[in-house]
């Protein structure tokens, strides 16, 4: 066989091998995206129902389940390529606000959506190409406060692209008019809450370090309680603070220890807003995040990531007593193939 023929045969063989593997890959039954529970949850004002997101192949639908666990009910299913996340109940429990998320050309977008908790009827409250990340009702149920990012970019070469230039906005639910409450263009804002008296907003932000900020709605004055506790990291890496129904306590997630690989282990901490003293209340030795208070009992639902710092998260929901003595996993059955 001549050298030329050898080359032709070898290159043809390689092309056939590649095309064969490519076609096998195209026809293989590969999941298109993340499947599993979402990170955030909401508890109805009567403490009966838990609402959460569940992802099917990368798209999150909203489900409801009794707070003790059991079979979930599909509440809202988005069109392909979009997700419904970050639900929050109205004070009377009749409405649920959530965020519709999607991406176009690697740019994420988020719009406000409102849904009847019983009817399941949905309506979009904002439209266009906004980047709204979360929303909560005011205590009187007449308005929504929401976080909106101005840009999605990396602020430095060693940072990932993220939403930035955050501000708080308010929407009047009678007129649907929107006003901007803050003018901070904050690097980061999350975990928005309104105090029970409706006079202050609480949120987490990053200003040199992670902070919980209380902002007066009357004069925009801010206070930033710094929890007093033993932290396993050099500085608090505080996330997902949640305000109790009486407005006297905050539960947040922070570094409690490190595992054998040096990965931080986040647990739930309770801070008393009278003296800012905080104590650890969970002991999962895993990643605890997004606590949500029950409204009428000393209990919480927390999200535990069983695969923290890995390629994909694996979230579970656990009920935890406020004194940290009890913790119980919520067993939820997601109905197969159900469509609205």
């Amino acid at each position, binding site marked *: 066989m001549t050298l030329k023929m050898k*080359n032709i045969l070898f290159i043809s063989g390689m092309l056939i091998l590649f095309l064969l593997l490519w076609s096998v890959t195209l026809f293989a039954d590969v999941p298109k995206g993340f499947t599993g529970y979402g990170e955030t949850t909401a508890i109805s004002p009567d403490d009966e129902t838990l609402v959460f997101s569940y992802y099917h192949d990368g798209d999150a639908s909203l489900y409801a389940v009794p707070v003790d666990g059991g079979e979930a009910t599909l509440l809202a299913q988005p069109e392909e390529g979009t997700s419904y996340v970050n639900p929050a109940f109205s004070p009377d429990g009749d409405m649920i606000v959530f965020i519709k998320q999607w991406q176009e050309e690697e740019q994420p977008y988020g719009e406000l959506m409102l849904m009847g908790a019983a009817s399941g009827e949905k309506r979009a409250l904002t439209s266009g190409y906004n980047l709204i990340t979360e929303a909560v009702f005011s205590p009187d149920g007449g308005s929504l406060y929401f976080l909106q990012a101005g840009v999605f970019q990396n602020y430095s070469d060693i940072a*990932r692209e993220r939403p930035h230039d955050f501000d708080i906005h308010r929407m009047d639910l009678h007129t649907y008019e929107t006003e901007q409450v803050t003018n901070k263009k904050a690097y980061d804002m999350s975990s928005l809450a309104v105090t029970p008296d409706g006079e202050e907003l609480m949120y987490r932000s990053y200003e040199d370090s992670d902070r919980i900020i209380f902002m007066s709605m009357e004069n925009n004055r801010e206070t930033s309680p710094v929890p007093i506790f033993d932290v396993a990291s050099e500085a608090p890496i505080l996330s997902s603070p949640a305000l109790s129904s009486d407005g006297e306590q905050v539960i947040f997630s922070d570094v409690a220890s490190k595992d054998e690989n040096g990965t931080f282990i986040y647990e739930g901490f309770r801070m008393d807003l009278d003296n800012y003293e905080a104590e650890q209340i969970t002991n999962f030795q895993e990643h605890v995040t997004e606590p949500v208070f029950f409204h009428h009992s000393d209990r919480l639902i927390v999200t535990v990531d069983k695969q923290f710092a890995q390629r994909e998260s694996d979230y579970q929901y656990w009920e935890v007593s406020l004194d940290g003595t009890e913790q119980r996993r919520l067993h939820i059955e997601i109905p197969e193939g159900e469509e609205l």
Partner: protein
Amino acid sequence: MNRMEKHIQQVLQETQCAAEEREELEEELLTHLQELKQSYIAQGESETKAEKLAIVQFGGSKLIGRGLQESMYPWQRGLLYIIGIASLLFGVLFHLYTLYVLQEPSIGWLAIQLTAGAFITLAAINIAFIGKHPYFLHVMGMLHLIWHAITYLFIQGMPMNQVFLFLVYLILLIGFQLVFLFRNSYFSSAAPNEDARKRWEIKIGYTLNLVFGMAVIAIALFFLWGLLLFTGWSMMALYAFIPILVWFVFYKYQMKFIARKPVVSILTGLLFSALAVAVPYAILVIV
């Protein structure tokens, strides 16, 4: 081209030698064939018959060519075949693992892996062509090595109980690649008639210079890994490859210098490798 010259060309198609060396070898082999031919003519054979008989006695082109290759560059062609085919096999096996176990296949990765393996195998098939371009072969080998190092970085983050054998396979493959690169540098630059001490110095020179090269690659890949971890893929990631590119250009000249001044080349290699890393990254910090 007469019958005997054609036969010699076919012999040389199976050997790796450089252009200059090839001319000498061609002349030497042709002289040998001419002598054989003359001896047959002296025995009363016609010119055509004498040529044919000389070629038969000389031996088949493949047999002689491969024999020459092994005596001049022992194991080099075999190593190229081993590396090339092992890379192709790794590509197929790891792709099937990512497809059916991880369920996250990457056609892009497969395309690069198969292309890299195919290039090395083609180099082994076309050993005469590649022998004329040792630096090209060296760059190709280094790029292939870097690609495997990047693959290693990605794989080691996957579930260890599943990818352990892939990692061992890759380490062995990288080991073979390092041995090949060292030998390729040595064979393509060092004169065979040096004394034993000089040859030993040259070998040390190549080994240490390649170690410096590996260090430059390791630092650049670490920098790239950090960038990817914090920022994901961006054009900035290409900056990480500048020290490698600079080192590649430098090594083209250093290969010859090592053969001439092996001891001094260790110092110049160390200095230049340090500069190849320090200058681009210092510019980045300043800017």
